[in-house]
């Protein structure tokens, strides 16, 4: 859906999206990385399980929620990437254990 202005990435780091290694750049948000993936979505809704992707990028829509390093319902547009970060797309309701 989206692409970087410059490829390859400078100072690339690796993060994991649903277990798969993905290149990212220090200083960018996790939501920005998700929007570059072939499957450019972040979660499915609790009510109808339909797919959602980052929409507002400024912290007011909550459609970019995903599980980050084991914590569910994290706003990925407000979360900057870090080496080795593990992102899981959030499926439906988040579980209480998270």
């Amino acid at each position, binding site marked *: *859906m989206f692409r970087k202005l410059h490829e390859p990435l400078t100072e690339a780091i690796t993060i994991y999206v649903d277990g798969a290694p993905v290149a990212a750049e220090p200083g*960018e948000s996790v939501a920005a990385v998700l929007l570059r993936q072939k499957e450019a979505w972040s979660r499915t809704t609790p009510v109808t399980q339909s797919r959602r992707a980052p929409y507002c*990028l400024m912290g007011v829509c909550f459609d970019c929620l995903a599980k980050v390093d084991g*914590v569910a319902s994290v706003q990925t547009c407000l979360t900057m990437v870090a080496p080795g970060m593990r992102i899981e797309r959030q499926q439906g309701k988040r579980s209480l254990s998270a």
Partner: protein
Amino acid sequence: MSEVDLLIVGAGPAGMAAAVTARQNGLDVLVIDDQPAPGGQIWRSVETVAATKRGALLGEAYAAGQASAAAFRASGAVYEPGSQLWQIEPGFRAFVTRDRQARVIKARAVILATGAQERPAPFPGWTLPGVLTVGAAQILLKNAGEIPEKPVWIAGSGPLPLLYMTQLLKAGGRVAGYLDTTPKGRLMAALPHLPGALGAMGDLLKGLGWKAALKRAGVPVVKHVAEIEAVGTDKVEQLRYRTANGREAIVSAEVVLVHEGVVPSIHPPLALGCKVEWSDVQACYVPVLDSWGESSQDYVFVAGDGAGIAGAKAAELRGHIAALRAAVKLGRLGEGAADERAAPLRSSLGRELALRPFLDTLFAPRPQVFAPPDETIVCRCEEVSAQEIRDLVKLGRPGPNQVKAFTRAGMGPCQGRQCGYTITHILAQAENRPPGEVGFYRVRPPLKPVTLGELASLDQQEPVA
């Protein structure tokens, strides 16, 4: 519990300016912000990006943020980025989470500089992946150097789509077409306000410059677009639109960017019980403030676009002005000195505000923004349709809070930030009363999602009640 003279919420133009002035007057200042770096949305990532090639294509108004951020950094205010404010109560006690740790901050005065958000403008298919706001796309460009892969469709009204398209073209991106949703006759309606706006001639010329650049680049423009629909199953595949003249088209699309103006962020002032009033021209609530930006609640100030949309320059001025008054009220500055220092700031602010009646009239949202078709999801979080809201009206004369209780609209993680105004408008139309009388959701804590773990991390020594 940390205790400060002044808590500033938000590190955009208003919050940073307020911090600088408050510090100059000897206040002990804490600035919290949910973003990772200072600058707010307008100057997102400005410290790292302004001096780069990407910074150059974002333009002068963006680069100007670098000096403001530097002054803020040097001000001596304590700055805690990545902080989520999820409750604020009189006293003042602010409940904030940072790095998964919650705590209570006590402050004698508060400046809310929480800015604005893009006006929610629901249409069928607006929840599909691939639909984003124009502001979102611009943040992706600023923060991540990222642009739509394929030629992008842009639908909306106002200065931001024009600015973003010129930036996108400079960056090497492509625009499939611009669906201008500004209704017919708006320019004629706005013209009487033009003489008043001439003081801000520079900004008007800038806008005309963007239009000229788009024309030169051959961007296809469809005028007076009244309705749009994003079509697809798991993501956007097509975009359907209809003009006021009834001209319809379906085009293939992967990314659709939408924008129908911006509205003040009112959740924090509402949480503190600040009085707000309905603005007919901006079709939103605006906090009731005195000439210093102080709200109906003593010691609570609102500065920046949260005080009413006026842009970054006005935001900085309002930040300085509010901080002067806070310094007076906290006994660090005499009233006479504050008046003297505020005078030149006030005249600059007057010049900035002079442009607003013209812009607000020219870009007043099209009526369809507030009357989405029945099948449209209006509450993105709880997936409640416009039809469900309209059906409820048959039961009586519900207000937003009854609608919330019956349908869960407004109860999801966004806490009504995306559906609040739509619910207000749908009820106003169906019940034939003015939106200002219908009102808005009662804002309840938490303002942002909090985990049980974070709640449990609150210092046990604190009396929480």
